[in-house]
């Protein structure tokens, strides 16, 4: 059976298609989200990363600024505007993502 909370972060465009995904029973935390973003960064060749360096920062800021998690279906794109389509995409395809650990504890105890 597929997991309730699912999504992926992708580095795409300019001939690249790399992604890191998640699928789990609990909502993804911000910390996990940032870790997935970091894993994706480490998968890229240096030139592919440099082309998206600012967009990785934008994606990181986006995750960090979320207050209380966001629900699917959500898709955010951060494109290097000097290119046609070199970008970072964040997709929340099921459930909730980027919540804080405290929120998970509250959900666990009260629901």
């Amino acid at each position, binding site marked *: 059976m597929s997991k309730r909370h699912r999504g992926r972060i992708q580095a795409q465009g300019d001939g690249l298609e790399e992604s890191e995904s998640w699928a789990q029973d609990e909502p993804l935390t911000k910390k996990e989200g940032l870790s997935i973003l970091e894993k994706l960064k480490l998968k890229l060749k240096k030139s592919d990363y440099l082309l998206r360096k600012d967009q990785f920062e934008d994606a990181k800021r986006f995750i960090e600024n979320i207050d209380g*998690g*966001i629900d699917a279906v959500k*898709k955010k794109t951060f494109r290097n505007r000097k290119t*046609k389509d*070199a970008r970072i995409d964040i997709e929340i395809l*099921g459930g909730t993502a980027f919540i804080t650990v405290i929120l998970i504890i509250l959900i666990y105890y009260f629901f």
Partner: protein
Amino acid sequence: MGSFLYPDFLNDKRQYNLVQASWNRLFIRLGEKYDFKYSSYLNPYDSSGRKEYDGNPIFNAFIPKIKKAVRIIQVSPGENVNDISAWIDEIEITKSSSPVKELVIDLALSKETKNVAIELIDSWVIGQINEHSLDLYLSKDQPETTPA
């Protein structure tokens, strides 16, 4: 030289709602022209349940009849009134269905980019563009695209 439309839309919610309504009207007209219905497939709210006003995306539509989606990202105007790009992506709209092709248009809104976007969306809906022809289409309209 052209000018930007709704240039302060990211700071002015009234402008934001107006430009969003204009994209919606475009789709209503297209729906009447080609006899389709559409619906939004992305959650427009933030974690507090408030509508997002970030333009990312400003509009999205899934057309079940042709199993295609359109997502429009709108950014603040910069220097270039021809600031538009587009590509084809995939999105899994529901867990049980297969991913659908999604035309993504990323622009700063001017008369020029709006016309290109309208042509692209029209061609996408009637099946006249794909991944390969989209590049040709954009290079025709965007000769000055800056390499990285």
